[in-house]
């Protein structure tokens, strides 16, 4: 850095940090407090939005995998054959598991509820999905228990919302009613009943999943739906979840028209788009607080300029140019912005911590409204970068007017202000 530039930074800082500076006046401290609060609001709101999106994404990925392939034809295709084709098309393939998907009605102790029954292959489900870590009670058991003494009962994992709604605990049995096509009269359905035992309760993250999802073995669903060894499709896992969309497009083109291929985001496209849009809206709405606070900073700086007329005149008499005077006051504005930003980031981080603690003690989010039962706040570096850049830019722009006022002052005008 040039000697001259170093000097102006030093001069600006010394003038700003001096005891008589407006920074330490009531209005200066108020302006800084406003800025700190505005930045803290931005940090918390962005952490909530990012946490919401991340919680939602993890929940969807844990339940549906990175990519879902639905087989259109009813004839079925062996898993190995389909996986071999996928491996050729996408080398980042890691694992696949078969699944079947049924809609049914659950009945238990006089209560009924519409549910989604997902049959999964117990052999390889944990390689693809993250269900196991979502177990909050019981065992991660999909296969029917066979101990030779008791009758063989299909095991099921249920969402915690459903468990609460139907008053089900681990070890309880419940019945499912499945409508099947009546081959004799296609206009009618016939009922198929199945009995399951709760092996575990899952917290699936997303409200709808917790309220409706039942997981069992693929074999149990095949038996219940009378579909032999056919299955609905494959759930796939690849190296990088972020590339899912591009991989899905590649698989779609490579596998042909016999399959419906959706990545994790597409499964909940509207929801993720809404969350993304909401994040942008929230950012700009709360940014208004920062803008208002930045203009308070500008007012403080303006008073600082006015009270320093004689110093400005003196500096000009010593050869400080208009441009340099403007730089001195702009730099002061940026320093105030930086102090407010740092304070705001620290306060925001503290509030995020506090939010997490309160959330762990009390249920803050009604899942029926927010789609998730809890949010793990996520402070992303990119959010901090955006907040910092926006705050400093706003402070710089807001302090231009007082800086230009100072620079336009004639030396004599300043010197007369003793």
């Amino acid at each position, binding site marked *: 850095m040039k*000697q001259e530039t170093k000097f102006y930074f030093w001069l600006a800082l010394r003038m700003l940090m001096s005891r008589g500076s407006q920074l330490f006046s009531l209005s200066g401290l108020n302006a800084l407090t406003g800025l700190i609060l505005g930045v803290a609001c931005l940090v918390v709101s962005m952490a909530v939005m990012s946490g919401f999106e991340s919680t939602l994404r993890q929940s969807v990925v844990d339940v549906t995998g990175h990519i879902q392939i639905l087989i259109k034809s009813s004839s079925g295709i062996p898993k190995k054959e389909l996986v071999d084709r996928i491996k050729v098309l996408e080398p980042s393939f890691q694992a696949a598991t078969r699944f079947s998907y049924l809609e049914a009605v659950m009945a238990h102790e006089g209560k009924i509820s519409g549910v989604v029954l997902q049959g999964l292959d117990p052999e390889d489900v944990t390689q693809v999905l993250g269900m196991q870590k979502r177990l909050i009670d019981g065992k991660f058991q999909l296969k029917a228990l066979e101990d030779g003494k008791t009758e063989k009962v299909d095991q099921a994992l249920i969402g915690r919302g459903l468990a609460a709604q139907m008053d089900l605990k681990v070890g309880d049995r419940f019945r499912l009613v499945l409508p099947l096509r009546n081959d004799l009269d296609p206009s009618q359905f016939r009922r198929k009943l199945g009995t399951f035992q709760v092996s575990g309760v899952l917290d699936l993250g997303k409200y709808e999943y917790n309220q409706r999802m039942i997981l069992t073995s693929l074999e149990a669903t095949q038996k219940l739906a009378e579909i032999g060894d056919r299955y609905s499709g494959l759930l796939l896992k690849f190296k990088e979840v972020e590339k899912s969309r591009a991989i899905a497009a590649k698989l779609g083109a490579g596998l042909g028209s016999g399959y419906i291929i959706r990545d994790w985001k597409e499964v909940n496209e509207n929801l993720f788009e809404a969350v993304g849009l909401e994040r942008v809206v929230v950012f700009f709405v709360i940014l208004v607080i920062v803008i208002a606070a930045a203009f308070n900073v500008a007012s403080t700086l303006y008073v600082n300029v006015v009270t320093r007329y004689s110093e400005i005149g*003196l*500096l*000009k008499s010593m050869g400080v140019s208009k441009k340099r005077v403007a730089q001195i006051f702009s730099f002061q504005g940026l320093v105030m912005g930086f102090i407010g930003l740092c304070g705001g980031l620290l306060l925001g981080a503290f509030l995020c911590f506090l939010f997490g603690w309160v959330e762990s003690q009390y249920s803050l989010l009604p899942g029926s409204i927010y789609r998730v039962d809890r949010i793990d706040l996520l402070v992303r570096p990119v959010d901090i970068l955006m907040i910092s850049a926006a705050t400093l830019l706003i402070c710089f722009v807001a302090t231009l007017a007082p800086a230009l006022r100072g620079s336009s002052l004639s*030396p004599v005008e300043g*010197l007369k202000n003793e």
Partner: protein
Amino acid sequence: MSSGTSPILSAKRISKSYPQGAGHLDILKEISLDIHHGEAICIVGASGAGKSTLLHILGTLDRPNSGELSFGGRSLLSMADEDLSLFRNQEMGFVFQFHHLLTEFTALENVLIPLRVRGVSKSESEDRAAEILNTLGLGERFEHFPSQLSGGELQRVAIARALIGRPQILFADEPTGNLDSHNSAVIQDLFFQLKESFGLTLVVVTHDPQFSRKFPRVLKMSDGRWV
């Protein structure tokens, strides 16, 4: 108001007026002045005669409504702000009635500012500021803030600041106007000593007849004109 040799600073037909009501108030009326290298000029006159305004215009701190101002043949009124600021930093020094020191800076820091503005390094600026403060008898006051200095000391620090950049011309506007008689006499003598040792051209505005009598060239102003 000129002599035979080529002037270092030349003002020709300088006029300055300020708006007042529907009309304007004339402060300087086509005033001319040539200042030669090494001269010591004193401008005297009643309050409101236009002395300070003329000094400010000669020192490029203010602009006239009309007229010409040149330094070594170079027109000063047509210079861009950046160039004029650099010129002022290198060629001119100012001492005012009030010391105008930056209150949150020490004596040493106040004095070194003109050098730092010019881009001189911190260590060199500090060495030169210490040297000139020692010369002016303020060797024990480097780290003192203006609030800790007496009136005479403040004005000596202001003089040190004006001279540290080795200007060609030193302008002083009522430099003793705020001092008691003892300090006033000390500062008056200091100006002439420094003029000789620094090879300065000195332009001083004063009300003090005792001070003005020490100058070889005294110019009197009245109502914006020489008398």
